[in-house]
């Protein structure tokens, strides 16, 4: 029996840690979606680019992936700004039959990025051999007579804590600073924000940069615990999308909760159903959310007068 509990708790912890990182990816997408009403289908590919930056910084200059968060995040911010300014903005002005053109455009950007990565870095699986990769805290080290044994991998924990710190500082940015407030105003009502003197065009550019920077930070946090290959982008784009649907479109709190739910659910599926089915579990949640919870977690929060 205690083994059962042990497995369950261990799975829960693994899911929670994974969920924290997922939340960071989801927030970036939710921000972009809220402000621009478009889905960035190159989201995972941007994360892949950040991961390659962190990887090469580690291999060439022996910079720890956690330090390269400080380098990769600004780089990704400017990349996001450039994409928005020179590719997406011109398309937003063009008249066409399908309004989904911008989404298809991001698909094109994603294709170019992942294919370029394949050409330059080959499609080999890579990972950063940090020396603390397999270290872990054990519950029995701290509590000798503990009836159950649990372990907490160090890189996972550090990544999780950093993800929480980034999320909290983002929250401060969005609620306390002028730029943050303008971004939220743009997301709520573009025209009203424009009347109030918010430079909507510039907020769009900043938001896209911010979204890219967030997913870039997530990429750096992922690299000590995950392997890296060029086609990884598509997988994470889908994850980000599932989180945003689960959390409620454009809701930041929803994205955090959605990320945690998805992380726990995935890790449960992997333990109790089978490794190969973990992606299916992801989609089951997605479809269930669409059918039974169309507004996502945000709708429940609103109903109970929590959140905004």
């Amino acid at each position, binding site marked *: 029996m205690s083994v059962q509990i042990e497995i369950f708790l261990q799975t829960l912890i693994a899911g929670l840690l994974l969920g924290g990182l997922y939340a960071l990816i989801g927030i970036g997408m939710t921000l972009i979606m809220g402000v621009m009403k478009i889905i960035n289908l190159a989201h995972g590919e941007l994360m892949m680019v950040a991961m390659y930056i962190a990887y090469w910084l580690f291999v060439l200059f022996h910079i720890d992936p956690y330090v390269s968060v400080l380098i990769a995040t600004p780089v990704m911010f400017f990349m996001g700004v450039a994409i928005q300014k020179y590719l997406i903005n011109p398309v937003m002005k063009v008249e066409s039959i399908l309004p989904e053109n911008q989404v*298809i455009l991001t698909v094109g950007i994603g294709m170019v990025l992942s*294919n370029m990565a394949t050409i330059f870095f080959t499609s080999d699986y890579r990972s950063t051999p940090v020396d603390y990769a397999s270290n872990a805290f054990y519950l029995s080290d701290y509590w000798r007579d503990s009836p159950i044994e649990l372990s907490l991998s160090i890189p996972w924990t550090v990544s999780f804590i950093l993800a929480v710190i980034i999320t909290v500082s983002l929250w401060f940015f969005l609620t306390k600073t002028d730029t943050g407030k303008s971004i939220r105003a743009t997301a709520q009502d573009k025209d009203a924000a424009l009347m109030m003197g918010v430079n909507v065009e510039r907020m769009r550019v900043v938001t896209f940069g911010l979204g890219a920077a967030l997913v870039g930070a997530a990429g750096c946090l992922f690299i000590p615990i995950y392997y890296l290959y060029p086609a990884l982008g598509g997988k994470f784009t889908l994850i980000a999308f599932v989180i945003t649907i689960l959390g409620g479109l454009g809701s930041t709190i929803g994205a955090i909760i959605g990320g945690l739910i998805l992380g726990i659910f995935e890790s449960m599926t992997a333990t109790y159903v089978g490794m*190969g089915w973990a992606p*299916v579990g992801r989609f089951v949640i997605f479809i269930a959310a669409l*059918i039974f919870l169309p507004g996502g977690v945000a709708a429940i929060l609103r109903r109970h007068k929590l959140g905004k």
Partner: protein
Amino acid sequence: MKKWLPYIITGLLALLPLIGLSTYMMHILILVIMWTVIGMAWNLLGGYCGQVSFGHAAFFGIGAYTAGILYFKTGLSAWWGIPLSIFFVSVASLLIGYVTLRLRGPFFALGTLAIGEVCRVTAENLRDFTQGTLGIMLKERTWIDKTWYYYIILGIAVFTFISIRKIINSKLGYYFVAIREDQDAAESLGINTTLYKTIALILSGVFTGLAGAFYMNYMGYIDPEIVFALHDISIITIMVVMVGGVATFWGPVVGAVIMVLLAEMIRSIPRLGVAHQTMFGILLILIIIFLPNGIVGDFSKIRKFFRFGRAG
């Protein structure tokens, strides 16, 4: 002249194998026609009804697997998969529509994308049924020569073209366009948008499924990575229509010709072969920025550009 154009083109295409083309040329032609079918099917849903799908690989794959599993489990000819796929793909489309048509615009696009991936992962994991990643292989193909395959896919293409043309010029087609232009306005005018969107999805899915079932018979081998591929099927489908022209009859035809030839050309250049997705991506970006309605849709723009060039 314009009225007779489809007949003339069909007639010419029907006579084409008689002049003795090489096997490779026939293969290219078959691929072009197959992609035309898929493009026309996508165009019905995406171009006319305005529901951009990123998951047409789901219908293609279900069609292909209908034929494949039929052959593999019962030993019947995989050709029976073509009529059977109509039934199975309709049922699947109904279910997919039930889930995804609650979403609008870009969210529908991503919903279908996820459905396509669900199909792929499911096909990979249901090993008893689909052989998983091993795939299904026909022990022997019906004909060595490609001529019959050519006529069959040409038949499917003509059937698709005529049906879609009939649908678009009927009342149903006007409903579709109304939904594309403004869903709320259409709803308030008494159009049952959910019903008509589902009809468009099923029709579109069935035509794509026919192409999938044909693919199984023609290629003789399928696995989940091939037929449920996101980039190689779903995205190429969108590109065929985007390049050719959204919501035009001839757009998918033009798009299929360009895309298949381009793919073959890039693949044949040794060092450029790996970069074919970059090329496609750049082409997609350029088309969206400069010709958002495709070559056929923005033909007047192209003509004006060249005329301007001549005058200057």
